């Protein structure tokens, strides 16, 4: 190894140690744990088998939870794209002063603790919450609409916190485009709507795709929001893992579910990425 390479490795050692101790080791231990057996009276056994995986994959209860989790993540991603793309374009067209103010507002949700933010949503969405009380008081509805403990409520709160990631990703993509292309399209006879859909949007697609990747994977593994707004009723994978670890105390089963979540999110991300590369590799990069 050359002196240069040695120095590079030495310099990255602290980060590598941190990475290994805080991420790789726990992940590896969880992985190993997922093969252990569990007995209600005897606790965690030391034998290794695929029994935990068989249990998860053989039970429709878990399929329902995984299905719900990915559906929530998918809908959250779609809504984030629908809100994030126009917002990013507006941001891109703003004057610098308003832009910096708006960026601050956009990343606002990320500055608030997830628990506080989600409890805020609980106050708004509850049966006796702000929205229902207001709607009943002005006579629009007679009985409260149920919004707490529903998948819809979870999606709403997830969109709130995920939309900044989408906006920032799309905005970055828009900034890479030549500002003169819109003028060029206009001079060729395109109307503003045509310019947006045929010129601006296609060039923002790489940003939408990378934003989707972030939003989807964070939504699929979100814990606090579904835990507070979904409660016992609407379980997602992350809350199920939590329950297995802390209520049933069946750590190996919880570890197996966690591993399956990790694997399925990875598969989605990698195939998404390949799709993007194949479709846009020649055009962008």
């Amino acid at each position: 190894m050359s002196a240069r390479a040695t120095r590079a490795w030495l310099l990255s050692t602290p980060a590598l140690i941190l990475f290994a101790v805080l991420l790789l080791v726990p992940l590896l231990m969880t992985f190993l744990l997922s093969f252990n057996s569990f007995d209600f009276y005897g606790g965690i056994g030391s034998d290794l088998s695929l029994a935990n995986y068989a249990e998860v994959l053989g039970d429709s209860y878990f399929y329902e939870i995984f299905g719900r989790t990915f559906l929530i993540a998918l809908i959250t991603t779609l809504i984030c794209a629908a809100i994030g793309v126009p917002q990013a374009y507006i941001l891109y067209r703003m004057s610098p002063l308003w832009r910096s103010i708006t960026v601050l507002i956009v990343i606002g949700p990320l500055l608030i603790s997830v628990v506080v933010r989600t409890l805020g949503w609980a106050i708004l969405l509850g049966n006796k919450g702000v929205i229902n009380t207001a709607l009943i008081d002005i006579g629009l509805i007679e009985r409260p609409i149920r919004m707490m403990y529903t998948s819809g409520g979870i999606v709403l709160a997830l969109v709130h916190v995920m939309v900044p990631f989408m906006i920032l990703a799309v905005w970055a993509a828009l900034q890479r485009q030549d500002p003169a292309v819109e003028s060029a399209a206009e001079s060729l006879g395109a109307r503003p709507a045509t310019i947006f859909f045929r010129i601006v949007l296609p060039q923002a697609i790489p940003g939408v795709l990378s934003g989707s990747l972030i939003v989807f994977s964070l939504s699929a593994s979100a814990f606090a929001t579904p835990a507070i707004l979904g409660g016992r009723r609407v379980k997602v994978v992350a809350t199920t893992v939590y329950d297995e670890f802390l209520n049933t105390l069946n750590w190996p089963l919880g570890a197996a579910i966690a591993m399956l979540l990790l694997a399925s999110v990875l598969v989605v991300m990698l195939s998404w990425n390949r799709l993007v590369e194949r479709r846009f590799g020649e055009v962008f990069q």
Partner: protein
Amino acid sequence: MAFLELHSLTKRFGAITAVEDLTFSVERGSFVSLLGPSGCGKTTTLQMVAGFETPTDGRIVLDGRDLSGVPARERGLGIVFQTYALFAHMTVAENVAFGLEMRKVAKAERTRRIADALDLVHLSHLEDRYPRSMSGGQRQRVALARALVIEPQLLLLDEPLSNLDAKLREEMQLELRRIQREAGVTTLMVTHDQSEALAMSDSIVVMDRGRLRQDATPFDVYEMPQSSFVSRFLGKSNNLAARLGESGPDGAALHCGNVVLHGPKADLPPGPVEIALRPERIALTGPDGGKLRGTVAERVFMGNQWLLRVETEIGDMLVMRYNTGRREADIGETVGLDWNPADIRILPAETNPA
């Protein structure tokens, strides 16, 4: 009535006046350059013609039609941007097709016109490529084809060659002029490069600080500059302050310090003037000949020519000499400078130097 006419065009941005009272015209089929240093208002002028900026005052008339209030997309102008502004997500053919699609040209005719346009710029073999995989010169041609395919009344070029390297730029100058002639399209080009403007244009409009300084053919702008700015901006020039004496029938006497030079007849009243003399019009003679004596202070070899800086009692003079393969006067050598008095240009003294 000329094809394109700008009447007292003015543009102010707050307190800043970018273009002031600009009037000139462009004949049908000709190639006109707007030339000036950066910040002189030439790009703003182009933006107003294109319809991207609204004039504060004045009118733009294209083929007898007043363009005020006509949006850019309805002006039907072909524009080549400095950055080319190609649509990165479309192939070459799709880029060229865009303007035709906007005009709802039928498929068969569209295909034919795209082929013609790409043929004109010699890019037929690359129609399925994406801009990202092309060289600067090729992208420039795509931008040109895209602008010409809509058969514009007017072609606007915004610093079209500034992103190319020097050698390619010279090739493209000729190429651009060929394409413009073949397409027969009236063209207005913005540039800060005087050699580009001289080489390509039928007529040059020189601008400085928002104002028109001279509007003439390249030859006249170079040979008969009407101001100190124009003489110094186009090519190299030795500009000296002088005092104009009485003009006789055979010319005028010019007092430069203690030296009296003879120049051509001047229309200016006696008093302070500026004289300009091109470096290539000065000949070197022996130390005792010529009109002025000086010492070579600097010598630059440029391949086909030499550039000398000669210190004289009225100031430094630049002298351009063709390299004929013979030895050139060396640094420290005393030489005589000679020229034809008719080559001196007498200009009004600059009251507000740039």
